[in-house]
């Protein structure tokens, strides 16, 4: 159970992808660890930690072909129960323009911020697209300093808000 593989599947969205793929894994004694699955722009993307004796490439080949999904498998060194709790959240919003993610994350990286999770989307309308991004991560740099670091992006019409995440543990 210790040798995890990262299995990635991508293809046009349709009902039943998760059910068929995970059933093929289950029928072949492959188990799931952490996964992330999401519809992005009409495509469905799956990232799954998978462990077991058999090769996911062989096990999933038929289902992937039937569902017209591209399949990719990597050996990884990952383990379960390695969660890091985020302590900083960054919200970004602005008129869509090239480079928003690169600029914001560039500033954060320079301040020693490690991204654990990033989600971005384009809201608004086709004429007036608005880029929205939320980032959760860890940093030893305090919120005020990070906020100051991203303040310069204000002038470029990008609203960046840095806030602390105090995870309630009760």
């Amino acid at each position: 159970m210790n040798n995890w593989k990262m299995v990635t599947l991508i293809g046009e969205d349709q009902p039943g992808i998760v059910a068929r793929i995970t059933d093929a894994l289950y029928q072949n004694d492959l188990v799931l660890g952490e996964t992330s699955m999401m519809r992005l722009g009409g495509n469905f993307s799956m990232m799954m930690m998978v462990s077991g004796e058999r090769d996911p490439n062989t096990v999933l080949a038929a289902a992937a072909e039937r569902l017209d999904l591209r399949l990719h498998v990597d050996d990884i060194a990952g383990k379960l129960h390695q969660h890091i709790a985020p302590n900083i959240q960054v919200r970004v919003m602005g008129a869509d323009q090239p480079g928003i993610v690169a600029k914001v994350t560039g500033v954060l990286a320079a301040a020693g911020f490690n991204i654990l999770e990033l989600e971005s989307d384009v809201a608004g309308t086709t004429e007036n697209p608005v880029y929205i991004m939320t980032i959760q991560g860890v940093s030893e740099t305090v919120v005020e300093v990070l906020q100051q670091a991203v303040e310069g992006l204000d002038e470029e019409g990008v609203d960046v808000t840095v806030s602390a995440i105090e995870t309630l543990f009760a």
Partner: protein
Amino acid sequence: MAILEILKIPDARLKQISEPVAQFDDALHAFIADLEETRQMGPAAVGIAAPQVGYFQRIVILDCSQTRKPVPNHGHLILINPEITHWDGFELGREGCLSVPDYTGNVIRAARITLVAQDPQGDRHEYEMKDFEARALQHEVDHLDGLLFLDRVVSRRTDLFQRKVYQKGANKKRKAANKAH
């Protein structure tokens, strides 16, 4: 004093609804001492509820005075038969739980609450709580009603971005405030 065993998911007893405390006696006080000792044993829990140790009475201990960043709080509280009488606003925040090892999730809670509760002697008190302390209290009262934060987790994608929209210009305001200093 004794350290009690904390029930962990998927223990079905965590779904049990707790009964109001009727006797404010030595047995209650002894249990509270054990519950407090148990809370302090774990990794820095700001609260604990009696049903988490399999004692299905409406008893909560709350202490938000030791957070990494100080938050508004009422210090160490022992709350018997707590009842939330007023809710106001809502906020998204990340929660974890002694009964749910190695998992945290985002939960929407009221930002401000009014609470009525009895103390270990049975006297009634009213509290106005906000933000983190209000969140912690709601998390604990949920335990008394057989609910875990897992029952309220929202998708990570369901961020309350709208909240920030009406605060647009906050950066500029803060800048102006900084300049004024």
